């Protein structure tokens, strides 16, 4: 047998092979690349079209508006993305965020110390996340859908109960209103919050052992166990991280509104799951990077904003987002199909 080593190390190009088989395979790989670049390309095209066709779209004021509007979706979508990487889902994000703003508002009545109020919101978010993770893992539930659906209901109910009938609980410490509603150099401060959370999640996913474990657990949970990864801890901590992101989202939203409310975060689970999927991550787990969640969040924000500027009513916006989700999921299905075709071709080419 031929023993020369053909392996190309570290970023090397694929070994050159002759024949139609290989050409076909490279055609597939181009199609695959296009599909994975799809969301970014679509976003750019969308921005160009909207700039040219919608008056007042590409103005500093409106861009700053969009950034502020997407901040909450983006931050929570980043946490949602980690959960989806593990093959899970967090339906409780909206209710979690609402509960956190209510608890924050209640704490503000006790103290106007911004750090204590922020700490309350972060802790509340992480605590709901911990409940999700712990019950899912140690309650041996077949799917996190169930527990996060339950906490969706519980957290929303708690938020309504604790706010004793007030739909808005006015008042937030100045630091929080500055974070949520202020601007620096014309850029909303909340945008910097998104950057900070994105940077953190990026580092975790790329450079930290925990992040590698998240990908491994999502890719092949059974193998992860046999390879000695503490799967249970990874899952619980991931749901806690998603909850923590809800806490951050709560700070941003209650700061912008200068209030807490049990009604905040309505349909946030839809927006964040949509952002992750539209951005091009996979429901099959273990695939995609956080860029997907960000691109998806921006896309949703941009579409909403444009539809607003065009005076399209809210009902149609919901329909539009739903249709886009279906298209995005279909492209994920197509991508997986192409990948398995490609695998077969490669196997053939290498004999």
């Amino acid at each position, binding site marked *: 047998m031929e023993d020369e080593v053909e392996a190309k190390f570290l970023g090397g190009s694929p070994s050159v092979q002759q024949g139609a088989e290989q050409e076909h395979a490279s055609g597939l790989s181009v199609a695959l690349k296009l599909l994975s670049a799809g969301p970014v390309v679509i976003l750019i095209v969308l921005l160009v079209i909207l700039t040219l066709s919608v008056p007042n779209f590409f103005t500093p004021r409106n861009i700053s508006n969009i950034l502020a509007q997407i901040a909450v979706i983006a931050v929570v979508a980043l946490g949602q993305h980690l959960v989806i990487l593990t093959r899970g889902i967090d339906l409780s994000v909206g209710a979690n965020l609402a509960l956190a703003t209510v608890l924050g508002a209640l704490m503000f009545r006790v103290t106007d110390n911004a750090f204590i109020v922020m700490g309350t919101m972060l802790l509340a978010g992480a605590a709901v996340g911990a409940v999700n993770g712990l019950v899912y893992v140690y309650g041996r539930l077949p799917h996190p859908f169930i527990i996060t659906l339950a906490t969706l209901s519980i957290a929303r109910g708690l938020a309504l109960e604790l706010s004793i009938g007030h739909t808005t609980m006015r008042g937030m410490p100045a630091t929080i209103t500055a974070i949520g509603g202020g601007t620096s150099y014309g850029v909303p401060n909340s945008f910097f919050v998104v950057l900070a959370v994105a940077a953190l999640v990026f580092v975790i996913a790329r450079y930290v052992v925990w992040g590698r474990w998240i990908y491994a657990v999502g890719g092949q949970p059974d*193998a992860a166990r046999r390879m000695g990864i503490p799967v249970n801890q990874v899952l619980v901590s991931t749901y806690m991280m998603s909850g923590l992101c809800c806490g951050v989202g709560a700070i941003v939203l209650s700061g912008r509104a200068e209030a807490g409310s049990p009604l905040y975060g309505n349909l946030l689970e839809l927006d964040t799951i949509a952002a992750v999927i539209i951005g091009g991550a996979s429901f099959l*787990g273990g695939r995609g990077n956080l860029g997907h969640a960000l691109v998806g969040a921006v896309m949703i924000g941009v579409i909403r904003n444009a539809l607003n500027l065009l005076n399209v009513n809210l009902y149609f916006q919901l329909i539009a987002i739903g249709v886009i989700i279906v298209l995005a999921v279909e492209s994920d299905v197509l991508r997986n199909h192409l990948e398995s075709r490609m695998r077969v071709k490669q196997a053939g080419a290498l004999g």
Partner: protein
Amino acid sequence: MSKPVLEVRGAHKRFGAVHALKGVGFVACRGEVLALLGDNGAGKSTLIKCVSGVHGLDEGDILIEGEKVAIRTPAAARGAGIETVYQDLALFDNLTPAENFYCGRELSFPRWLPRGLRLLASRKMNSEAAAVIDRLKVKLPRFDAQVALMSGGQRQAIAVARAAVFARKVVILDEPTAALGLRESRKVLNLIAQLRDEGNAVILITHNMEHVVELADRAVVLRQGHKVGEIEKPNRSNQQDLVAMIVGAE
């Protein structure tokens, strides 16, 4: 036969009503290939999963170099120097070969942090994985692609190479050639021989008598959870005895 590096004594394992192992024992020695044979459902995979820490034994002992060890988790088995190539490979399709090699025992720093919070030493893992791929003469289309995009033989080779990265005492392979064609089987057999020559005790589960005759220094046969026989130096003349033991026709 040198001093055994792994010994299993009186192993029992039940899954509810199924009594999968009924007092099985065997030894494995360095520099030797032990074939573990038996029909479908005989208990081979169960036995090696107990040794690999996937299942706990209900009764019986596992000894490493003469010392009793408690192997309750896969990590414990690996810590004791036992590497396993599972029947389903247990690869992560979404990761690269190098990421697969180190998954679950990443090289990381700084040491004073809890393992999960440490930073990945990616460059080191990549270069060491590349060295192993090189040493084992495994051919891959590219080293930085997801394992999902590789062929059955390449995936098998990656799983074997992963065991080779960490192999110190025992390497167990559960039907490593079952899904492979002739050429790819040949490559995996060569890898097995290489692991043996590097001083590991190799335990090979297979249904292929040709491979047993070619590679095995000893063969242990299981039938319905019992150990029904052991043959030294399986060869073409005693191959028939082995087959008779496996199927149970005397």
